[in-house]
């Protein structure tokens, strides 16, 4: 096994810059690793070896010609299958899009290509990003590299597992209620949900338009910042894209200084329902930060207790509308029922056959919440709760520069544990959802290992467009934990059995 796969993206960029390694070598090392372990992990739905190597060759040639290249040029990346990639399959984890080749690139994809990052392939996910375990993928679940009997989190389990299993140094995820951060916590990796509007949603197959945000999945905070800089920034193709300079995230990750930083611990996120081991790792992390000069304050965000309920009305409502376009008329699966099929019956049969149970559950729930007579009571009320949550954030950020909580209430659970209990599954996102409802950025990084031998995560939240604060505090904590552990957390994961 090549040592190249153990390197961080930042380290790989240095090797490339000093001509110590070529992009082709690096890409090939990762393709080999995918070949070795992905039959077990199933992080990828589609691997584009040819395309990745072609980009690598191009970058190597351009570097040899003395061309000025972007920092991450030549460093390979995996992309969650919810973002369109021209000429490659894009399924969003759904059978309804099986075989569909997008005729256009998502803005995130286009920026990765423009920056010269070879795309290794598309990663597995819960169907249309609905889920917290990837068990709802239409193509089979992804396994957690720490314990292959366990889920890697979701919906972006594929991206997190790819990074944690050293199949890719970098990956793109999307986070609607925690789909980047929760898998990061479950796999001992780093995940960032940028400020809503910070990264273009153009080409991101919408789950809930007012909540979705793409972001980095990496093994280090600095890598996340480097990737953040590549994909963020205003996009005229997304009306909800913020037309302001990208916060200085890389500089912040390099600064990593928490002296005088006020860290607010959210009272409502971390009590009942949270694994005591996770809470312990969280408190130990706070101790380290306090020791480094941060001021820890308790803040109360009383409306957060309603966040989950509001989220499970807003998300299905928007999703029921966003997913209406999958109708067998212009692309994707077409199922004709017996008898004398019409457009209407073909649509209905295709949507029944092509969507999984969780997707149908949420579409029906959202259709209900928006239907006449119920709109005010459900969708309307949920929007009011959203206002209260935004107000709670505003108040909290009045006394704290960043907020902190455990990322997820549990460590990675076993396959099937929560599959038949939607509410228990939904509760996975209790700590991550408030950030999506308010549009503020969040970062999760490993806080340690629980007694069950599985990684735990800590989450930081910052005001909108203050993403740099997350990288500063995250990098500071990461450095102190690394000192304590003596090696990156992923070295503590059981070595994956290699098929070869």
């Amino acid at each position, binding site marked *: 096994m090549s040592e190249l796969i153990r390197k961080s993206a930042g380290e790989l960029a240095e090797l490339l810059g000093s001509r110590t390694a070529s992009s082709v070598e690096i890409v090939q090392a990762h393709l080999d690793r995918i070949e070795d372990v992905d039959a077990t992990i199933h992080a990828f739905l589609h691997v584009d070896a040819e395309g990745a190597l072609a980009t690598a060759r191009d970058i190597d040639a351009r570097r040899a010609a003395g061309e000025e290249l972007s920092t991450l040029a030549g460093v390979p990346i995996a992309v969650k299958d919810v973002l369109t990639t021209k000429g490659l399959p894009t399924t969003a984890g759904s059978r309804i899009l099986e075989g569909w080749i997008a005729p256009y690139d998502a803005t995130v994809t286009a920026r990765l290509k423009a920056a010269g990052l070879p795309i290794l392939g598309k990663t597995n996910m819960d169907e249309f990003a609905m889920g917290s375990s990837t068990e709802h993928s239409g193509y089979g679940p992804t396994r957690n590299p720490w314990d292959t009997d366990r889920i890697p989190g979701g919906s972006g389990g594929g991206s997190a597992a790819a990074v944690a299993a050293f199949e890719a140094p970098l990956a793109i995820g999307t986070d609607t209620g925690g789909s980047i951060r929760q898998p990061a916590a479950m796999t001992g990796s780093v995940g960032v949900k940028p400020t809503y509007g910070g990264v273009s949603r153009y080409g991101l197959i919408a789950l809930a338009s007012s909540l979705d945000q793409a972001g980095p999945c990496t093994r280090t905070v600095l890598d996340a910042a480097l990737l953040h800089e590549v994909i963020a920034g205003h996009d005229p193709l997304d009306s909800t894209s913020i037309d302001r300079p990208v916060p200085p995230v890389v500089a912040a990750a390099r600064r990593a200084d928490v002296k005088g930083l006020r860290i607010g611990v959210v009272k409502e996120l971390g009590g009942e329902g949270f694994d005591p081991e996770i809470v312990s790792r969280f408190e130990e992390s706070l101790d380290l930060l306090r020791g480094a000069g941060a001021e820890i304050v308790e803040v109360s965000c009383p409306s957060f207790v309603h966040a989950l309920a509001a989220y499970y009305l807003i998300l299905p409502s928007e999703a029921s509308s966003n997913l209406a*376009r999958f109708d067998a008329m212009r692309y994707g699966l077409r199922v004709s029922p017996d008898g004398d099929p019409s457009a209407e019956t073909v649509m209905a049969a295709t949507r029944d056959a092509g969507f999984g149970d969780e997707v149908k559950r949420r579409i029906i729930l959202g259709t209900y919440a928006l239907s006449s007579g119920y709109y005010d009571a459900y969708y309307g009320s949920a929007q009011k709760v959203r206002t209260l949550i935004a107000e709670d954030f505003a108040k909290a950020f009045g006394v704290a520069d960043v907020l902190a909580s455990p990322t997820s209430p549990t460590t990675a659970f076993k396959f099937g544990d929560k599959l038949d209990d939607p509410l228990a599954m939904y509760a996975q996102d209790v700590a991550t959802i408030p950030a999506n409802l308010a549009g503020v950025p969040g970062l999760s990084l490993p806080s340690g290992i629980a007694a069950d031998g599985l990684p735990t995560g800590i989450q930081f939240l910052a005001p909108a467009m203050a993403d740099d604060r997350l990288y500063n505090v995250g990098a500071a904590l990461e450095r102190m934990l690394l000192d304590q552990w003596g090696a990156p957390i992923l070295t503590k994961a059981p070595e994956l059995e290699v098929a070869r």
Partner: protein
Amino acid sequence: MTGTRTMVDFDDALTRYQPVMGLEVHIELNTESKMFCGCATNFGAEPNSNVCPVCLGLPGALPVVNGTAVESAIRIGLALNCQIASWCRFARKNYFYPDMPKNFQTSQYDEPIAFNGWTDVAVPTAEGDDEIYRVEIERAHMEEDTGKSLHVGGATGRIHGADYSLVDFNRAGIPLIEIVTKPIVVPGAKAPAVARAYVSHLRDLIGGLGVSDVRMDQGSLRCDVNLSLRPIGQEAFGTRTETKNVNSFKSVEQAARFEVQRQAALLDAGEKIVQETRHFHEKDGSTSPGREKSDAEDYRYFPEPDLAPISASREWVEELRATLPEPPAARRRRLQAEWEFSDLDMRDTVGAGALDLVAATIEAGAAPQAARKWWLGELARRANEADVELSVLTITPQQVAEIQALIDAGKINDKLARDVFDGVLAGEGTPEEVVASRGLEVVSDDGALSDAVDRAIEANPDVADKIRDGKVAAAGALIGAVMKEMRGQADAGRVRELILEKLG
């Protein structure tokens, strides 16, 4: 299609029922690009050639609002004397249909960009006067058009009985403005005429703004006629029907009239009106039932999360107001006064569709009465013969003014002018060129004229004697003789002067 159906005589129906109408007009804007994407909007392009991820509703695509379309919407709202919302949003109207790419239409729901307006409509009366009706406008809002389906198989090419359909999304996403009236309650007999006049008025008004082609034949102006009857004296409105896609002014009038007669027959028989959409049939002016409007229709509107709200500042609205042309009615009043036209002159000019042509001819230098005379006389006759609109004639107002200028300068006379019109319409060039090439210029060479006058006097000695005796009126006979010899190409005034000089 319509079968035999009991119909009540229109006038008879109105003795018992009051019609209440609501008109919904869809205007396709003539922007360069679509409402939410950069695709071109040209009519008649090859199928699916003006499409992109956004207007095909591909996974992941996002809309971005066309700023010019918003300005057009505001200008339409202002022209209809509406209030402009200081803050409004788009909303999704959710329903499934194969020609609607996202299976929701991006529209506006409870926050239209323009609302509470009115417009005064002139309805021609039997006496030849105009009666003014004020139509109240409920709202004008922005939305997007759908694709177009071609139904294959079956007998008629219609949706019913087709084997399958072929969808072209070129039209999907073209900006639409939907203009909805408040209930129109007018003297019953007037209702169909008011409906027609309103739609025709909107055509002029919005055409004048330059924001739409407003062509009913191409679908850039489409009208749905909602109509209900209530027994005279009853306050509550009856159940209404919605006759869709009534696509000419005449059809609007016919549809309203037909529904009055049809609904009256049902009500007379004690039957209920079914709340439904109805189809209009051009060939006989009838309507037939379409889709029943059921309670199951639930569009689940909610604010479009992919688009930012629109906040129209006072400054912006006033800036747009300043770009509005004069309203047609006010313009007519002003022009009539300027031109010193009688009411009859003016009505004839407007009725002939010649107002803009006459105005442009006057603008180009012709006297108002002269401009009117040519367009409503000679040119109207020719248009009539060719069975085309005046505006289609291949002569410009500028050229008509040039011809009049030639007359005023004495270079040609009215009779010769007709030949010049022939030449210009035949594509022989400018009026000057036609005069030259056809040799139409009046002879103003005194030498040639003088010789002709001498010959006329010699040939008519008795007439010459009468003139010498002071009977000046007799000069007409000599003038006629001279003009005949000159084959009309002489200035009759100058001929007269010469005769009187020689015999005076």
